[in-house]
């Protein structure tokens, strides 16, 4: 599907490291102007009329490329997309002209209820058709290419007939959307479902990667006492995830990479150190023939 782009004129995030913008870091970002490739915000936090969120995002946007990341569109939902929510997204895109807009392969609303979590869906022909319809609708109403994020999941469905990377590959092939490769989600899901992360990664259409997410996970145990990893964005990025990231970069080349931290948010400096680590790997990937 071809779309007239509605995003900023330079419609790609630079192939550098970026950070999630947290309200507690607004001042520091403006004062210290850290050397970062971009900032990412959760769209829903900025769906308010006025006040400090818009004030600071407006000023920070003047100085940095922006990635707008939605968490409430429920693309994997059984029901129709919320057109009011799509309009709110369109308003934000028009106002801030982000270089990228992304959402999740998940559902979060059912009927009138919003569940505030990224919930898993069964992967079969019916859900594939529905997700593709939703992605088409998002891209045509927002006039931009969507990056679709692979989810972190804790269980799978009996009725699934497609595996996740092939399901994602089909959505990308049919809709022309891009991939937001969340390396932490790949690792978390593969451990939780006894899969090999490298095999999973190889099955994804990595050539469509428009952005990468890196984050930390929490460790839990299931009823068998086996490792159950929780994607809580509340810890430093694990070594295994850094290693997987390096392997992914070898396939994708340098791609804009976000360090995600939404819980137990540490001092800004700690996040900057992780961003620098990602930049070292990005440079190495760029230098490779």
């Amino acid at each position, binding site marked *: 599907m071809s779309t007239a782009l509605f995003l900023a004129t330079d419609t790609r995030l630079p192939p550098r490291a970026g950070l999630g913008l947290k309200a507690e870091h607004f001042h520091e970002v403006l004062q210290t102007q850290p050397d970062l490739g971009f900032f990412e915000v959760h769209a829903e*936090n900025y769906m308010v009329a*006025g006040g400090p969120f818009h004030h600071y995002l407006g000023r920070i946007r003047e100085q940095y490329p922006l990635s707008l990341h939605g968490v409430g569109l429920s693309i994997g939902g059984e029901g129709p997309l919320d057109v009011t929510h799509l309009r709110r997204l369109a308003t934000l895109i028009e106002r801030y002209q982000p270089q990228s807009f992304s959402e999740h392969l998940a*559902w979060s609303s059912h009927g*009138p209820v*919003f569940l505030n*979590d990224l919930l898993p869906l069964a992967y079969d022909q019916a859900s594939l058709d529905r997700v593709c319809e939703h992605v088409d609708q998002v891209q045509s109403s927002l006039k931009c290419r969507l990056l679709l994020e692979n989810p972190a999941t804790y*269980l799978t469905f*009996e009725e699934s007939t497609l595996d996740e990377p092939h399901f994602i590959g089909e959505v990308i092939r049919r809709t022309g959307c891009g991939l937001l490769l969340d390396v932490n989600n790949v690792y978390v899901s593969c451990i939780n479902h006894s899969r090999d992360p490298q095999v999973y990664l190889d099955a994804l259409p990595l050539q469509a990667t428009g952005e990468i997410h890196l984050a930390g996970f929490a460790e839990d145990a299931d009823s068998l006492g*086996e490792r*159950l990893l929780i994607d809580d964005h509340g810890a430093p990025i694990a070594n295994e995830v850094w290693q997987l990231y390096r392997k992914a970069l070898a396939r994708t080349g340098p791609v804009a990479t976000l360090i995600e931290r939404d819980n137990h948010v540490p001092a800004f400096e700690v996040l900057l150190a992780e961003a620098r680590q990602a930049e070292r790997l990005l440079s190495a990937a760029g230098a490779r023939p």
Partner: protein
Amino acid sequence: MSRQSEFAAALLDPRQACPPGLISANGADSESRFAVYRNNVLSSLINALADNYPVVTQLVGEEFFRGMAGVYVQSAAPRSPIMSDYGADFSGFIERFEPAAGVPYLADVARLERLQIEAGHAADAQPMSAERVVELLSCPTLAAHLKIAFHPSLRLLKSPFAVVTIWAAHQQKPLVAFEPRAAQNALVLRNGLDVEVLAISHGAHAFITSLQQGLPLTAAIERYTDLDLEHLLGRLIRHQAITGLLSEQVTQ
């Protein structure tokens, strides 16, 4: 019932078993895997409330608050993905929540905290300069029919409890002692980027309410005679509450 209907219903009701047809690749009990989603939903919503109601949390303690918020979440899941809107009616729930009856002012403190969230995200508007307000008010021919436009963030609260004092006592460490049983009215607004909470008199509450409802300034002044007008207008100007003085056509 559709797959996602079952899933959603079981997420919000911990007494329900997890839906059928869920698989763990290693053969673990799918209930233990489903519990991750249940916990994510519940704890993220409780956290959202705890973030928005810090003084309510302090008044009852974290453990009680999380228990109370958990009951609320199960009875009133969000209706929108905009989480700053979530819990707008939490104060009404608290008022009816029997175990919290021992803290009768809890619901009003929740109302005050809710107004602060609303004020923080309300539309922007340029306040009128103090000089301009004074200039217009001192012009007798104009002042007679002026209506005051307030900043979109301005909110009022009337309480039988010392709601501002209670809230303010919790902004300091260590906590300051407070006497809750004195009726108090609050004015909440955003001044620049900061949300401010002021205690105002009953008269000031009534006066500002009538102006918000569109009563011309002179009519409001005539109606509320026992008011230190100069003091009140001074405060409103100082806190940048006035965004416009509109001259009204006299229609009679």
